[in-house]
């Protein structure tokens, strides 16, 4: 349906452009994997994992076991082959018995439970705030909003997390005894029905991190959307609408918002990789077992296969969503296709 809506607005699907753009992704992805694999081998992965007590034989044995003694380009070929065939059967070094595929799948749910609502809420709230700001352009509410956005952007993400966790996690518990938010931890869907989960467990574990995430991104998003809307409100068609006698709400919501949707869509699709990579800091701090946390723990434990695979998957997601953004943009604005 979404697709139909877009083609309705933007005309035919630019197949030629899509093919060209997709082909361009191939060398870029090969390059990413190459750079990443080289970078991961600067510090020899096997001794880094096994520590100082491992003997030379043990290190050599593990090296052969994982094919790390072969020439680099053969390793490269094998790894690219695995990624292309989505083969994530290799075992993690640290968590014995778990494959990389299991780790990735296990992290996906918690990460999405955090990031999808966060992205959704952030977009809705910032577009609304930006509309209000653009409505009052130059007057007191607008100025206050702009100033508070700049102020909010100047405080570190970590401070929001620490202070938010203290006041909404600890302090409420201490003063009222009620516990609306978990301080840390996560529970997955398991046997509970989705509705029950979404109304009880999810708010308990995820609402606080989601609120913090929305608060942090609002500064940046609101500023951007406000600039877009102010820019748009100076266009000729707005003047025409006003001259025609359209009411201010009609101009704002019907004329302006529709045209301002293009940058909104682009910005949202740029943030799609964030859905998967998640917010490392929130996952670390609230102990939510998402993918970002899995990557960071793997880095600290020098769990080489996991680090390598997760980084490669992240890069693929990044590339795919950039592709999607460009295609959407090309559909909305046909001039892009020519360049």
């Amino acid at each position, binding site marked *: 349906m979404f697709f139909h809506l877009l083609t309705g607005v933007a005309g035919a699907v630019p197949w030629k452009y899509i093919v060209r753009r997709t082909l361009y992704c191939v*060398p*870029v*992805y090969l*390059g*990413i994997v190459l*750079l*990443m694999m080289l*970078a*991961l081998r*600067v*510090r*020899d992965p096997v001794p*880094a994992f096994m520590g100082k007590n491992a003997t030379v034989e043990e290190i050599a044995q593990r090296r052969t076991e994982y094919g790390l003694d072969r020439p680099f380009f053969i390793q490269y070929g094998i790894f690219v082959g695995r990624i292309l065939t989505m083969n994530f059967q290799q075992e993690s070094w640290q968590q014995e018995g778990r494959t990389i595929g299991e780790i990735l799948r296990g992290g996906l749910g918690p990460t999405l439970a955090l990031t999808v609502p966060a992205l959704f809420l952030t977009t809705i709230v910032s577009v609304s705030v930006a509309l209000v700001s653009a409505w009052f352009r130059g007057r007191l509410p607008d100025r206050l909003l702009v100033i508070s956005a*700049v*102020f909010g*952007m*100047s*405080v*570190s*993400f*970590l*401070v929001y997390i*620490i*202070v938010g966790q*203290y006041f909404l996690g*600890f302090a409420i518990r201490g003063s009222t005894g009620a516990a609306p938010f978990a301080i840390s931890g996560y529970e997955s869907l398991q046997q509970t029905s989705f509705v029950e989960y979404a109304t009880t467990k999810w708010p308990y574990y995820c609402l606080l991190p989601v609120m913090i995430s929305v608060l942090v991104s609002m500064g940046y998003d609101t500023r*951007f959307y406000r*600039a*877009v809307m102010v*820019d748009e409100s100076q266009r000729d068609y707005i003047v025409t609408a006003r001259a025609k006698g359209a009411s201010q709400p009609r101009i704002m919501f019907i004329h302006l918002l529709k045209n301002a949707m293009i*940058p909104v869509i682009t910005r949202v699709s740029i943030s799609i*990789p964030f859905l998967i*990579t998640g917010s*490392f*800091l929130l996952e*670390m701090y609230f102990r939510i077992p998402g993918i970002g946390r899995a*990557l*960071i723990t793997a*880095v600290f434990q020098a769990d080489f296969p996991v*680090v390598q695979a997760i*980084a490669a998957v*992240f*890069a693929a997601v*990044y*590339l795919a969503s*950039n592709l999607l953004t460009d295609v959407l943009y090309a559909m909305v604005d046909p001039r892009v296709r020519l360049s």
Partner: protein
Amino acid sequence: MTTPQSRSRVWRKLLLHRPALISLFVILAYVIAGAAVLCGWITVEHTDAAYGAPQIPGFGLSPEPDERVEDVAWYLSKIRIPLSSLKPEEALRSFPIKDLAAANVPVEELRQRLADADQQLVELRQIPDINTSVASGGSDGKQAIDQLRTLEQKSRELFTLAPDVSPTYRWIHLSLGTDRLGRSILLRAVYSIRVAILVGLVTGLLSVAIGAVLGLVAGYFGGWVDVVITWLYSTFASIPNIVLLILMVYIFREGTIDEKINDLTGNLLKRLLGGVRLDETLVPVYVAFCSTFWIGPCRVIRGEALKLRELEYIQAARVLGYGRNRILFRHLLPNVSHLILINFSLLFIGAIKSEVILSFLGLGVQEGASWGLMISFAKDEVVNGFFWQIGVATVFMFGLVLAFNILSDGLQDILDPKHV
């Protein structure tokens, strides 16, 4: 932009743009403070030493009575350790609290005074719920607070100021309180300016320089040069920022890369750093930031160079037979200088904020102090309801980042008004 007239116009606009001007002065103040720290005004030892009891609030505010009792206990324990060593006279000379020394009396009398104070401490600790009884203002409370005051007086008599410290300095060192290891929050916050300025300047300048050169070359020459550079930045841009940061710092850990560089260059590194390992310096942070930060300016400047290349003045320069370098750096570069300036100030902010995240992950600054270290160290204090360290670090950082935010907005208004 190159003619003196237009340059003075930009300056005039900047002078008229009051917020930008004010933030420029704020940044200047931070830079001066950072330079002063760099010259040895505050050293690493200052940031590590204990100055007073743990978690004292700043501005000379006094904590709750039960905490005051514990503070006295801390001071007493600090003097008990040297007194109970085998050679007390010697141990007393190297005193564990910065700014303070043991009172100038014989060891025997010190022991006497300590025992006396200890006695009273035990009595005070036996009072149940001292906070509420003092707050209620009853006779018990009054008695307790009097007892506490005399005990504090006694504990103070055990110490004198160290000979090279004036009372004003002592007051300044404690003016913003201490963290949970008794270290001075003010000294740590001011020392961190040095780290912030260094990280911001070095990564900002380096990444803008790399981005500008590559972007100009790609945009101006086009062809395969453009293809290679576009490939390079698309590749780097497709690795999530934080993943690249973590990978870069991971590479530098435990000194393996040092050995490699030393082997390749004939111990160049060892001679340069004099035995210090790379991961003990800020170098991994610089490399990690530069490897992600150059992409933004490169992309923007390449786009601008693509546009400028078709303009008449560049074609005229080409017809006049000017060399490539002359066109690139005398004709093109000045005309993208506004983008360079804006991107630099944006990257400066990015560097300071990313430093906090790296420090939280334990991958950032390793010794001394930084706002990131302070904020992540403060999370255990916040659980106890002590906000001085996180508050001070946030305020210091807020000032600098806000000034740069306002400055880059101002620069954008002045130099690139068409930008959304």
